[in-house]
């Protein structure tokens, strides 16, 4: 049996709008992935700690407040420090088009603004997570 992709869906920072995060978590689950949802108001340090402990393949950040650039930058730096810089980071939420390229430059692999179809997210993860088959 092929290994299940393990995803941490995380809500960093103070933003409490979690409808999107929960909806995507459910969709990934239904697509056969193992999903951990962080709950609200997580610090970057907490998210990286959970990612290390749970040995996830993907960290998916859901950010609606507009603070996606500083938060993501901080997270990727922390992940590198903790030796999980190789884990895939994807971002969803209220993301203006012009910031997508900036997020990718920081090291984000995929960006899925509100309304992105589940199919697109699922296929992206299946194709891009190493050894997911």
């Amino acid at each position, binding site marked *: 049996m092929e290994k299940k992709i393990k995803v941490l869906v995380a809500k960093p920072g103070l933003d*409490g709008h979690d*409808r999107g995060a929960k909806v995507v*978590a459910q969709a990934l*689950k239904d697509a056969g992935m193992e999903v951990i949802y962080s*709950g*609200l108001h997580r610090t970057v340090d907490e998210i990286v700690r959970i990612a290390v402990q749970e040995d996830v393949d993907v960290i998916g950040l859901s950010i609606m407040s*507009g603070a996606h650039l500083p938060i993501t930058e901080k997270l990727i730096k922390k992940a590198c420090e903790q030796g999980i810089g190789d884990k895939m980071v994807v971002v969803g939420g209220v993301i203006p088009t012009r910031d997508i390229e900036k997020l990718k430059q920081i090291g984000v692999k995929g960006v899925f603004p509100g309304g992105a179809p589940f199919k697109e997210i699922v296929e992206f993860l299946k194709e891009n997570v190493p050894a997911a088959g």
Partner: protein
Amino acid sequence: MGLARYIKDEKDRISRVTYPSGIDIKTVYGPEDLERVGFFYEKDLADPGAYPFTRGIHREGYRSRAWTMRQYAGFATAGETNERFKFLISHGSTGLNVAFDLPTQMGYDSDDPMAEGEVGRVGMAIDSLRDFEAAFAGIDLAKIGASLTVNAVASIILAMYQAMAEKHGYSPEVISATPQNDILKEMIGRGAWIFPVEPAVNLIGDTIEHSIRTMPKTNPVSVSGYHIRESGATAAQEMGYAILIANAYIDNVLKRRYDVDQFVGRFSFNFNIFGNMWETVAKFRAGRKLWARNLKERYGVKKPQNMFMRGMFGGGGSGLTKQEPENNIMRGAYYGLAAALSGAQTTGLCSYDEAYTIPTPHAALLSLRTLQLLMEEVGLRDTVDPLAGSYFIETITKEMEGKIEEEMEKIEKAGGIIAAVSSGHIQRIVARQAYEFEKGIQAGDLLKVGVNIYTGEAPMEVELHEYDGVSAEKQVESLRALKRERNGREVARTLGELEQAAKTGKNVMPFLMDCCKAYATVGEMTRVFKDVFGEFREPSII
């Protein structure tokens, strides 16, 4: 959760329509439908301004008074927000709807590491009374009421508003603040909670009690079905859960030995408008009636004016789309129309660019103009409740009443609203529905123009409100200056007294006022509460 489901045959003829609340819609309605649902004019409608207020709470509706228009605004520092307030007032806005940044809403000062990157981003940053003084400088607080969109720390912010008003020379009897102050809905939706359920509800009781005593024109709680709907609830659940939440706050105040008629008339509500217009209208007409009946029969409220379901009906964030954002301007107009046909006393619209960021002044002005145009140009002030007597509307209003009651009963059977929120029961229901809704959109079963039907317009880039990191730095600097300049001993003394009051179960509001006047910060006051009350543990949903 606002879109009806349409089943069509191969000739594009609609064979079945079902509203999300579970009402099936017929092709034609007639007198036999009113008979079927047991409709009686006196019992179900009565005249506008008369119990059970189905037709509206005022006898003359918009003839006697147009709706209050409150556009949600606030960003960066208090000074910059003050300019936006004045801009909106100069263009005819008749109330303020104040947005706070996330650190303020979550009880962190601007210099807290948790606040990094968020200071002044989605609202204005408030650290102390000094910021409030700047935010409301030059605004006539006796004429312009302020909605304060804050929940977990609403007690602190309301105390600060009162302290600010007093400093500006207004007596508490003349000011009108409407803190949102609905923590149970934060736990279901929006997510800006801090303290555990029980002390959090008790803080709301404190603000209500304090308002009865000192600020009779203040509306101490604005029960917000709005955010529950945004999280995935149906219209019937939105209304039903809101009534149950309001009852939880009433019960808290009744324990303090007040008569229900002393305070419940100051309750207000915040409800959502998007999606199907007829279901929306039915929701409000049935909701007004159920709230009035709930107060009269369950709580023994005597004065009719205390049975009014007053509030802000509008917004519509979930209905707006990122795709083809200009379409949201048209959507807003129809949501505004639905608000008027529903008898909203106060309204406000999400702006067309809010799927991208907080609104630019241009987008906010377009929303305001949409509402003004509806009131002045198309005849919405002509007569009260213009849809009354329609076989269709009266039938579905009765059916909606039944659906709302069903949703309320389900929660009561599950142990009541507080248990259902603490355990995550409601959160699971709405999360599941949000997922099903999203699947419906993606499969094309629920139609959204520009999203899954009539698509193909090239993506457009909207003009964005720019987040200003310099303002955030200024805010942190001014907080540091405040901490140097204020009387540290007075701060420590008032915070110590606040802690004692919280520990001994006294009403904390007078103590918060003292802290605010000593220029204690939101973060310092929140810290006291966290130490005494602890923090909410989010139930696991996924």
